[in-house]
Every structure is written in structure tokens, then in C-alpha cells.
């Protein structure tokens, strides 16, 4: 289905516009019971994502000023789509973090990140989740970073990461590791 959205002028706002990401919440797409349809603008989700009973989003903590939401258009003219990405860096390598990495391989996720303007952006949608990638480095010398770069990414979307204005349901057990 091709959604027609009217093209209007882009207006620049003069209020402060800091960068950065302050919150990250993750859920497996298979745990979503109802993914709402976007509003008429095709970019805003004003209704809540409803998880299956017992499921919900879990918060992932990460190093300050390392989170970022990206989206960019890819493909040749006539075949364009949008790639969505959410990147963070988690310092330190330990068994708990690595257990999450093991469990997240080949997973299909919906992730929510909140930018510094207060917008919650959702990567992934009803039909297509984002995959998980990681790159751990212990560092070679004392001044190097010792930790894991995480990336959630997906290609082929027909829309930018949605703006989510409803409330996120948070799972009781604070872990993303729940089977494979």
C-alpha cells in the first residue's frame, strides 16, 4: 500500500535543539500483541504499543552521549526506502552483558529511544523489526575503550522511525534475556 502524505514546506524552529539520546527501551517484535497504526501524518504513533501478557519493554542503560538514532534513504530512484538505526555504547565487558548479547543474536526487535528534544522514536514496526549487532573491544592500552558498541538496524522501511507519543509498558523483570 502506498501512503500519500501531502508535501508541505519545512519550517525551521528557533528553539534550542541539542543532540543526544537519553533513554533506550527494547522489546522483541514477537512479544507485541498490537502495534498501532500511525496517525494521519504517517510518522506519529499516538496509540500505545500493546505487548503480549507477561511481555513489555526493558530499559537498556548505556554510556552518556553514546546513543543516537539515525535514518537515511537508500536505494536508486524508483526503489528508495529508509534505513533505520539506533546505536549505543555499553562500557565494560562482563558476563551479564554478554549473556544479553548471546540471547539477542538473530532476534527481531522493536526499540524506542528518546532524543534530547523529548521525542521518543521507535525503530521497527508491525511488519519489520530491527536486527541487533554488536562489536566488543577490550582495548589495547589503558586509555582505550573497553566495552561494546550496540547497533539496532533495519532496511527497507517505508517510513522514518515513528514519533511515539503514548506510554511505553515496562516489563517487570528487568532483563531482555528470555529464551532465544
Amino acid at each position, binding site marked *: 500500500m502506498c501512503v500519500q502524505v501531502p508535501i508541505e514546506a519545512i519550517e525551521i524552529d528557533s528553539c534550542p535543539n541539542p543532540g543526544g539520546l537519553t533513554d533506550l527501551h527494547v522489546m522483541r517484535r514477537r512479544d507485541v500483541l498490537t502495534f498501532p497504526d500511525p496517525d494521519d501524518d504517517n510518522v506519529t504513533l499516538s496509540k500505545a504499543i500493546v*505487548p503480549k*501478557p507477561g511481555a*513489555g519493554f526493558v530499559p537498556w542503560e548505556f554510556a552518556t552521549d553514546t546513543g543516537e538514532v539515525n535514518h537515511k534513504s537508500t536505494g536508486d530512484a524508483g526503489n528508495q526506502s529508509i534505513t533505520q538505526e539506533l546505536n549505543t555504547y555499553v562500557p565494560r565487558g562482563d558476563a551479564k552483558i554478554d549473556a544479553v548479547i548471546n540471547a539477542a543474536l538473530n532476534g527481531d526487535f522493536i526499540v524506542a529511544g528518546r532524543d534530547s528534544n523529548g521525542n521518543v522514536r521507535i525503530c521497527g514496526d508491525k511488519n519489520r523489526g530491527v536486527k541487533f549487532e554488536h562489536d566488543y573491544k577490550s582495548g589495547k592500552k589503558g586509555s582505550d575503550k573497553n566495552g561494546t558498541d550496540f547497533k539496532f538496524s533495519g532496511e527497507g522501511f517505508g517510513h522514518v522511525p515513528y514519533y511515539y507519543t503514548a506510554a*511505553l509498558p515496562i516489563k517487570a523483570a528487568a532483563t531482555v534475556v528470555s529464551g532465544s
Partner: protein
Amino acid sequence: MLTLFKLVNTKGLKALNFGGDTIPLDQIDDALAAKLIGKTHVLERVAPTTAPAVAQLAPVAEQAPAAEAEAPSAGRKKASGN
């Protein structure tokens, strides 16, 4: 304390994240719930069950005072309209 709303579908959930704040479910009060209703599947408005029950039980003869009681409220509506 929730009186006008009730929590539903909370199995396996501990909180809501809204506007960057994580709000534990047991700390949602009526004021917060009024803000969150429609934005989550865990809140429902409590149906006003008592009022219709009283109306059904009330004898027909008592309808006259009820009509009188409505009259001033209609007047107030007009006043507020101006």
C-alpha cells in the same frame, strides 16, 4: 490512589515510561491516570455504576423533584455560556 480509574492488563508489567519518566504502576494516581488514559492499555475509566442503579430503583413519583433539580443547572449553563 486510583478512584476514577483502574489498572488492567498489568500482568508482567511494573511501570510505564511516559515523557522520559518511569512511573511505577502502584504510583499512578487519578491525576496521572487522567493524563495517561488513551495512551496505554493498562488503564480504564471506572464506570459510574452507582448512579444508574439509583435511577432505576427510584420510584416514578420522585421524578418531579429531579426535574426541579435540573432547572437551576440549566440556568448555570446559560450563565457560564455568557
